[in-house]
Every structure is written in structure tokens, then in C-alpha cells.
């Protein structure tokens, strides 16, 4: 594997210009092994702050694995081993004095299938702020719940039935509830793993619209199988293949004129 060319080596200098709001996440030479199997090969990627970064690639290419590195979700898999360096705001997320619970509050995650707690809508959102001690009083907690639901674009639809069960909502509403739940603990980075794959086109459009609003305040990293979605919502795109980061760049370039033939073959539906 010594012959592997790192993306950081081949990205032209013009590409390396400073992003508008600085770089939020820096990953260097990240490798992931599941037991003997190597899932990621020396991935180095900068994720700019307050923007949407899309990770694309065929199934099993390592994009979700990489996403899960960013809040150390791979720690929960016994056979997984991660090497390399990941920094958020310049801080190494693997350092010994880092509280992984705090990290996961700071780096929220939304999954493919909406997974609200089997509790009321209110409790779904209030749970995080309460256990992290982010609200001192009931009224303050009410405020956090309302503002989170508002930012997730769900408030108007649920404000009169906050006591109803979260699982009784529609799929799209459940997913926005999960986003509200992630937002409630004031994260800076939100990871989304195919957040719309279980949703209909209208619910998908609402989540995409939401992402566009959220990126004013948050750094969003989304894994998606829909090329069109990646093209619509992201400012930068990274293409993974067989555990290697093949190409990364501005989304408009990746989808109109990618540099790498593999990227082109994948996005135009010529793969394999």
C-alpha cells in the first residue's frame, strides 16, 4: 500500500484556497479496519465550516465508515480499529482527555431510518438538553424544545400535540424530529447517513430545504446514494471508491466536470 497516492498530494494548489468560514473538520491519513479487513485507506479530507459536504460512492466504498469516524461511532463496534488523526476545530477527537459523550453531543447524527424514542414529541427533543444540563428551568427547556422544532421546520405541524408519541408522526416528520433532537444539544457538526432514503419526494424536499437553512449555523456532512441529492444540497463533494477517497472538490465541479475518470464513470451511471 506504499504506492498509494494520497489525495492531499494530488489536489492542485488552487483547490487548497481557504474556505469562507474556515475548516471545521480535518482528517489526516484515516484508516479503519474491521478485524482483518481494511475499510478505509489513508483518507485525508478537510471539511469546511458552515457548509454541506456530501460523501458519495457505491455501496461498501467506506463513506459511511468515514462518517462514523467523525463522532467515534466506530468505537461502538468491537472489531473496528481506527488510525490516523481527526481534528474538529483543531482538537484531536481521539485525545485521552476528550469526553466522547460530549463529542457526540457536539457532533450530532441523523440516521437512514428515523429513530425517535418511544416517547412524546416534547420528550424526544427535551431528553438531550436535560441530560447534558443545557436548561436550568422548565421554561428554559420549553424554549429549547420550541426553537429546535422550529429550526427543524416541524414546530407548526406539532405545536398543538407535543404530548403525542413521536413514533406516531409520518416518516418525514419523524426524520425532522430526529434532526430537532440532534439540534437541541447545540451541536456544531451534524452527520447525516442517507437521511432521506426512507422518505417520499415531498418529505425529502423538506429535509433538503432544511439542510440549506441549517448550513448557516452548522457544518453538515451527508452520506447519500442519490447523486441528484448530493448535487442539490452540498457545496463540496467527496467521492469514495473501495475505501479510497478518489476525488473531492466543489460540488459543481464534481458533477459537471470531474477530474478523475472513476468519478465520472460513477456519477454518469457507467460503473462496473
Amino acid at each position, binding site marked *: 500500500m506504499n504506492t498509494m497516492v494520497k489525495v492531499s498530494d494530488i489536489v492542485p494548489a488552487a483547490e487548497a484556497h481557504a474556505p469562507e468560514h474556515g475548516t471545521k473538520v480535518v482528517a489526516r491519513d484515516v484508516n479503519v479496519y474491521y478485524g482483518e479487513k481494511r475499510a478505509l485507506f489513508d483518507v485525508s479530507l478537510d471539511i469546511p465550516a458552515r457548509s454541506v459536504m456530501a460523501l458519495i460512492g457505491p455501496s461498501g466504498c467506506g463513506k459511511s465508515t468515514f462518517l462514523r469516524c467523525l463522532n467515534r461511532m466506530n468505537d461502538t463496534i468491537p472489531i473496528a480499529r481506527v488510525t490516523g488523526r481527526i481534528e474538529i476545530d483543531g482538537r484531536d477527537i481521539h485525545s485521552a482527555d476528550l469526553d466522547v459523550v460530549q463529542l457526540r453531543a457536539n457532533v450530532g447524527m441523523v440516521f437512514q431510518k428515523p429513530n425517535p424514542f418511544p416517547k412524546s414529541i416534547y420528550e424526544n427533543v427535551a431528553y438531550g438538553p436535560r441530560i447534558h444540563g443545557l436548561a436550568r428551568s422548565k421554561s428554559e427547556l420549553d424554549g429549547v424544545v420550541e426553537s429546535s422544532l422550529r429550526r427543524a421546520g416541524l414546530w407548526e405541524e406539532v405545536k398543538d400535540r407535543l404530548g403525542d408519541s413521536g413514533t406516531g408522526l409520518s416518516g418525514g416528520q419523524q426524520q425532522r424530529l430526529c434532526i430537532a433532537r440532534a439540534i437541541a444539544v447545540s451541536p456544531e457538526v451534524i452527520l447525516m447517513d442517507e437521511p432521506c432514503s426512507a422518505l417520499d419526494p415531498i418529505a425529502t424536499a423538506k429535509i433538503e430545504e432544511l439542510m440549506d437553512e441549517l448550513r448557516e449555523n452548522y457544518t453538515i456532512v451527508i452520506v447519500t446514494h442519490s*447523486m*441528484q441529492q448530493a*448535487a442539490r444540497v452540498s457545496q463540496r463533494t467527496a467521492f469514495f471508491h473501495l475505501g479510497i477517497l478518489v476525488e473531492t472538490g466543489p460540488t459543481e465541479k464534481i*458533477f*459537471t*466536470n*470531474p477530474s478523475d475518470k472513476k468519478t*465520472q*464513470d460513477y*456519477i*454518469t*451511471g*457507467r*460503473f*462496473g
Partner: protein
Amino acid sequence: MMVMQEHTAKAFDADLQDLSRMVAEMGGLAEKQIADSIDALTKRDSVRAERVIAADLAIDNLQREIEDRSVLTIARRQPMAVDLRQIVSALRIANDLERIGDLAKNIAKRVLPITTEFHPQKLIRGVEHMSALVLAQLKQVLDSYASHDVEKAMAVWNGDEEVDAICTSLFRELLTYMMEDPRHITFCIHLMFSAKNIERMGDHATNIAETVYFMVQGRPITDERPKGDTLAALAAEH
């Protein structure tokens, strides 16, 4: 030419091939229209001129077909990158070819009023020479489109200079004829417009060269295009 792997969805390849084929067919028709209109002009053959005028409809119809097929393919396949550029290019080239067809039709229309005795061979040769150049340019640029050959497209792009230069010298010559004898003015004006039409066809061939470059490279040509056209400077002189 870049070797392009087939799409997983084979029907998508068929859609793109159909588009290329229709553009090629339209290009062939446009070439024929140019040759026929110039032939009608030099021989003052009004029957052939009428035929050119009637044949323009086929080019217009093909353009509409290319537009319909492009819109349908975009809606159906959501093309990306090189595929998207290929479809956009087909639309653009069809547009240029349709304009070329119109210009040929316009030359054919001018054949009918030119029935005077005055018909200097030297001028006719000039127009013929110019149209031969433009035809060669169009043929080459259509080849470059079919074979995705950027170098060939660039050669066309750089070759427009000569056409412009001939048009300018023709203009100069026509002016002297008109100053010599006002009875020649009608003929000379028609010939001048015909020459200008041919020059514009050359511009459309250049446009197509730019489109081919964009289609293959994914970015526009950035060099400054050479200009042989000094009509503006000439107008200031007189």
C-alpha cells in the same frame, strides 16, 4: 477520442447515440444547403434556389426533434457531467445549424432578383472561394463533433480568420464596382449580403467548434480568437 464505457442503463447510450446521429444528419443537410445555395447564386438558377428555400423546412424539423429528444432525455435520465454536456452541446449545435440553414435560404432568396447582365466573374469567384472555405470548416467541425476531436475543433476555431479576411476584401471590391456605375448597386448589394451570410455561417462553425471543445473538455476555450474582420475599420475609412 476518449474511450467511453457504456452506461449500466443501455437505453441511455441509445438516447445519446440518437442525439449525435440527428445532429450529424442535420449537419449533412446544412452542408448541402450551403453548396446548393451558392450553386444557385453563381449559376443564377432560380429553380435550384426555390428547392433550397423549400428544403429549409427539413432542417427546422430536425432541430425541433433534437430539442424534444434532449428535453426528454434530461427529464428521464438526469444526466451528469459529460452526458449532460453532450446533450447541451447537441442543443447548441442544432441551434447553430438551424441558423446556417436560414442563411443559406436567405442566399437562395437573393438569386431571384439578380437577373441583370452585370455579373463579374471575379466577384462570383470570390464568393465561391469563400463558401468553399466555410463548407470545409463546417465539414471539419462536424467531424470533430462526431469523433470528439478537440484538436480538429481548435483548427476550425483558428481558421475563421481567413473567411473574415476574404469577406473584407470582397466588400472593398464591391464598393469600387458600385462607385463605377450606380446600375450595379442592386446586384452588388445582394452579393454583399450573400457574402456576409457566408461569413456568418463561418461564425456558426466557430460556435460549434467552441461547443465541441466545451463538450469534451468541460470548460470553455479561453484563448483570444484571432480576428481577420476589419470591416469596422474599413467603414471608418469611407
